[in-house]
């Protein structure tokens, strides 16, 4: 396999807090690689270091074959879309795109083929100021701006934050197509449900990578049973559920509480019986397939 990004022991501290603690991973050519983790996990810091916008305290990485120290070479090979969509709100859609093209030493015409598919949807609004665009359109424009100089590796820092669900789905479809063209994409997101869109994901928490695998593998290798529980009195349920024996971890998940238990101990009947004893009614107890979030919560608790 052709590795486009190889990071080894990247460490970064801000004063006393460790933002990144010896992070190592590698990403292959044409791979869509996701970093999944809550706010403050260190995703943005990692992307900043890999795009040479920030210096690491220690550790190094090869980006498209170049060390981070070789700033100019790395910068000319990466496309970077920072956390907030960095557009100029007072410039029009077209002016924004042209500006980034010029600054990166190219023209919109020259690389139009790369962004064409995304840009056609923006074209009807090309004279509108970027500040007046919807979240989804801003996101598309920011992606176009990050792609206009034909990067080899694309870094997208939380590209779907603040964007409606339909635009989010569209966006991931776009990334899928970009990947087909051989572009290597690293994307970070706090949304666990987006993990399944990636070829591989790294679960990251407090500056440490907990696990790296394809999303299917991560959920499959989850050692526990996840039991979803619901009743008419959720507040009481939260308290009572802690008394269930052998529960490894409990956390809310939408309208259900999820309990992770060792497979040999898990019995829906036992839990249902226990809840009835506590006076719960309309209970629903079922074993479900573990999702990425279940795995994440479990790993977090373990670490």
């Amino acid at each position, binding site marked *: 396999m052709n590795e486009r990004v190889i990071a080894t022991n990247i460490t970064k501290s801000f004063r006393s807090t460790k933002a990144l603690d010896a992070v190592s991973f590698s990403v292959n050519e044409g791979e869509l690689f996701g970093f999944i983790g809550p706010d403050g996990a260190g995703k943005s810091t990692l992307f*900043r270091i890999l*795009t*040479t*916008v*920030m*210096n690491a305290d220690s550790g190094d990485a090869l980006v498209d074959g170049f060390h981070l120290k070789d700033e*100019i070479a790395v*910068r*000319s090979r*990466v*496309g*970077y*879309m*920072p*956390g*907030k*969509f*960095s*557009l*100029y*709100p*007072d*410039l029009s859609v077209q*002016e924004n795109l*042209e*500006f*980034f093209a*010029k*600054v*990166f*030493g190219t023209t919109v015409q020259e690389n139009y083929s790369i962004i064409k598919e995304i840009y056609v949807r923006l074209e009807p609004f090309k004279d509108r100021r970027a500040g007046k665009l919807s979240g989804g359109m801003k996101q598309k424009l920011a992606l176009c*701006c*990050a792609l206009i100089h034909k990067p080899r590796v694309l870094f997208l820092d939380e590209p779907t934050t603040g964007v409606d669900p339909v635009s989010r789905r569209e966006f991931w479809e776009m990334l899928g197509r970009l990947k087909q063209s051989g572009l290597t994409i690293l994307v970070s997101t706090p949304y666990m449900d987006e993990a399944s869109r990636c070829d591989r994901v790294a679960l990251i928490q407090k500056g440490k990578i907990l696990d790296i695998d394809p999303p299917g593998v991560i959920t499959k290798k989850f050692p526990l049973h996840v039991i979803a529980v619901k009743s008419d009195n959720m507040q009481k349920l939260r308290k009572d559920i802690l008394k269930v024996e052998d529960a490894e971890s409990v956390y809310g998940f939408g309208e259900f509480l999820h309990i992770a238990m060792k497979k040999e101990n898990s019995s829906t009947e036992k839990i249902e019986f226990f809840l009835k004893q506590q006076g719960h009614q309309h209970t629903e107890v079922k074993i479900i397939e573990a999702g990425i979030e279940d795995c994440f919560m479990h790993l977090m608790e373990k670490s």
Partner: protein
Amino acid sequence: MNRRRFFGFLQKEFRHIFRDRRTMLILFGMPIVQILLFGFAITNEIKNVNVAVLDKAHDDVSHDITNRILSSEYFHLYQNLNSEKEIETAFQSGKVKVVVVFENNLAKNIYSKNIGNIQIISDATDPNTANTIVAYTRAILLNYQQDLNKGSKPPAIIQTEVRMWFNEELKGVYLFVPGVMTIIMMLVSAMMTSISLAREKETGTLEALMVSPLKSWQVILGKVIPYLVLSFSITLVTLGLSMFVFHVPIRGNIFLLLGEVLLFVITALSFGILISSIAPNQMAAMLISMMGLMLPTIILSGYIFPIDNMPVPLQVISNIIPARWFISMLRDIMLKGAGWSVVWKDTCVLAFMAVVFLFLASRRFKMKLR
């Protein structure tokens, strides 16, 4: 390729400025309004002051003096009074600001005793105006007295002399123009530049630019040039306005003046870049330039309060304020007609400050996050 990049950046900066109509309006409107205000409203000059005359003498001297007072552009006869009682009512009407009272037998007293008494009563509810009016009236009386004494025997008594150098008519606008120009330039150059750079930091666009091949000096220069053009043109508007509307003289060399303006703009701009390299966002940039720049500039530069009247510690502090040197140079060149031989020291001080600020700014401003 490199040049195209830079011009792309420059074009974007000019777009930012011209798109922001409101800020443009404020930037161009403010100096105009300030100059007009200082020129017309807030002024120490008096014009068309209503005067009332109580002439008990009715002789040639009292008539002469009354004519002199009224023929100046400062006074306008509102009414003739017949008795002392009417003075109070005249003031109470609010129209009359000053009353001139001639004593009985004024001419006779002057010719025989060499002493004549004229009373000037002014409405001192506004002491500043009253002072000015009294001073003007006395000046006219003195003038008359001198004419009277020409070639005549024992001279009459001269009590006061009121005279203002360089601004004999106490024209406020002369003193305020250099100050207003300085404040505006500080505002546009330092504050606007720092805010514009801090905005890019805040919105994350600077982070996107960091990955670009743009060098940090290109970003700085790209930020500086548009505001240099902007503040220079605003200065020209201010200067033009004060010259053509208020006839403020430019007694010195105009090119020397513009050269000093340019130097000061560069000093202020480099200070602005320095501020934005420290400030994390627009709000901080604005606060720092307001508190650290505008206030000391207004208070300690000699714009409003004369430096010589300050306590010594403040006088020392005023030395590190660029505007102090600039305002003194402006006044020297514009009002006194001073040349290079006078202002070269101040110029050196300013140039030194510019170099220091630029050095610090370029060291602090990097295409990197910390």
